[in-house]
């Protein structure tokens, strides 16, 4: 894909009228209809955006997908085995550098990684910093409770920092992989992780028909929105509509599966599964793999040097 066929910027913008936080006008809660339409649009936006970034010319885009998937998987395991926050921070800095080298906007990359999951994790692990949950050496005393000294413990704070940085590094690695690899190439690369061919085929078709069925859902909900005057507040009728639309979607999905099957058979499908085989592994890919293995060993070695 060249720059002229890239998705225009206005299509990747969240639609103002659908924004449930009410950035224009009065703040109000979005109804379930608007939220579902918004969710569908966000999904589409994310997929379109990945397609664009994957076709850019950056460092990671040039690495062969099989090698990239295997190395990212290895780095994920290394990040999971690391036991010290400074090592995880160094790994996070390395993912930021990789993002820049792959032509991704840094602010976008940071936002995409941190928004929601690591921040959510931080809130969830907050109680674990107290001595009630993680006993240990109290560093920030908060008084006494029935004769026990309570406060924030060094163990609790380290545990919270560990999990937040670990989650951030893991998500950064996966986002890097997703944003720099076209989805069909990524699926073919799954064969490198010994995923059976049948699963790869099912996964690819599921991804393809996901967007087809998503259009159906968006149509149903847009029609509902068009028929509704004012706000949709009745919970019971709302639930009936959700159940009915999910049931109708199942009918359409099943009909689609039948049609797809007939189309496959008429094109000579006999039950034997073929998938797109990835390209050859070149010297650049070997270099990348060696660099990743070395990085993983440096991370784990540095971690060991900091103590158990």
């Amino acid at each position: 894909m060249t720059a002229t066929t890239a998705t225009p910027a206005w299509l990747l913008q969240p639609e103002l009228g659908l924004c449930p936080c009410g950035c224009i006008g009065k703040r109000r809660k979005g109804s379930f209809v608007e939220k579902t339409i918004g969710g569908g649009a966000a999904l589409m936006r994310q997929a379109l955006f990945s397609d664009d970034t994957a076709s850019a010319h950056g460092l990671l885009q040039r690495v062969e997908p099989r090698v990239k998937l295997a190395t990212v998987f290895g780095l994920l395991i290394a990040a999971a085995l690391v036991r010290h926050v400074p090592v995880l921070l160094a790994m996070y800095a390395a993912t930021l550098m990789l993002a820049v080298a792959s032509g991704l906007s840094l602010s976008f990359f940071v936002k995409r990684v941190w928004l929601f999951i690591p921040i959510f994790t931080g809130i969830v692990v907050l109680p674990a910093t107290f001595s009630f949950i993680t006993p240990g050496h109290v560093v920030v005393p908060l008084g006494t409770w029935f004769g026990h000294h309570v406060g924030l413990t060094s163990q609790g704070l380290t545990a919270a920092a560990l999990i937040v940085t670990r989650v951030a590094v893991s998500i950064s690695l996966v986002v890097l992989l997703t944003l720099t690899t076209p989805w069909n190439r990524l699926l073919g690369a799954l064969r490198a992780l010994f995923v059976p061919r049948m699963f790869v085929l099912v996964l690819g078709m599921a991804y393809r028909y996901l967007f087809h069925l998503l259009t159906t859902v968006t149509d149903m909900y847009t029609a509902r929105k068009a028929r509704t005057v004012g706000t949709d507040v009745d919970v019971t009728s709302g639930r009936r509509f959700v159940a009915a639309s999910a049931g109708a979607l199942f009918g359409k999905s099943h009909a689609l599966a039948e049609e797809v099957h007939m189309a496959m058979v008429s094109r000579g499908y006999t039950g034997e599964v073929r998938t797109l085989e990835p390209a050859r592994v070149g010297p650049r890919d070997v270099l990348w793999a060696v660099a990743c293995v070395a990085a993983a060993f440096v991370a784990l070695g540095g971690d060991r040097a900091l103590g158990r």
Partner: protein
Amino acid sequence: MHIPDGYLSPETCGTLGAAMVPVWTVAARRVRKVVKSRYVPLLAVGAAYCFLIMMFNIPIPDGTTAHAAGAVLVAVLLGPEAAVIAVSVALAIQALFFGDGGVLAFGANAFNMAFVMPLTGYAVYRLVSRGTSLTSRRRALAAGLGGYVGLNAAALCAAIEFGLQPTLFHRADGTPLYAPFHLSHTIPAMMLAHLLVAGVIEAVLTAGVVSYLQRANVPLLRINHKAVAESDDDLPPPTRLRWRWAVVGLGVMALLTPLGLIAPGTAFGEDAPQDLDLRKYHLDAVPEGLRRYAGFWHHTLFDGYGFRNDANPTVGYLVSAFVGIAVIVLAIAAFFGLRRLVRRVSSA
């Protein structure tokens, strides 16, 4: 309930992933046997459907919305084996392309949501909907109950996985390396949310879709219910449960009576309150009533399930069991004999 990477140790993820391999193999083989070459598009579209079900926002009374997981619904519609594969594929797409749920944690997520959830939910659904027609109300309710139980079983598994982390994986100074909360925190926190809110939403959606298909599109329910009668009129007459089964159950229990011989201590300190080790529970008082009535009546044939002065305790225990059973059987026989006599007299 999608567990991101970093919450679980790689050991946990590896174990659960390895546990899923035979599940996937068996499920794939069974689906292939039933639907032949049609399985690829069926599973692919089923997986896409699963993915989209998780996107449906369901209104809940306070004006906000929530979403369901849908695994039990897919199990009811396409069968449990197809649900295992379809939900796994949907989870893989979410993890790989949309960053929802971890890539390393994929095995754990699949174990909770693609294995435990559809299978327990489907088992409950089968049990409750047994003997009902395809369009009966109980079948829709059974699907809802299946969704509720399935989601909570999955949440319990996730809570146990989280809760085991600080016990199994920590530094020498006690710093937890992964999720920091213990089982005593994770289980109440996860179960409260899922038993009260998420489970109810799952039940509403699952029952709602089944009841919609019962009204609007019964042939779609036929996909996984080939031999079920369509309406209540087509049902075969119900087979009555024979009373002999009750006797079999009671007989098994009677045969198990010697188990009481190996149990240590007394039952709840019923005749010796001092045997209750209340200190263990930080209690230091025997209830007044228990103290007063413990020695109230000792004029029985087999005091304390044995002979007088505890001679031959084993024989005494068994004899008292036999005598007890015999007395109860005689009492029941006397009741039915008397009833028959009364009926005969009144009809004559």
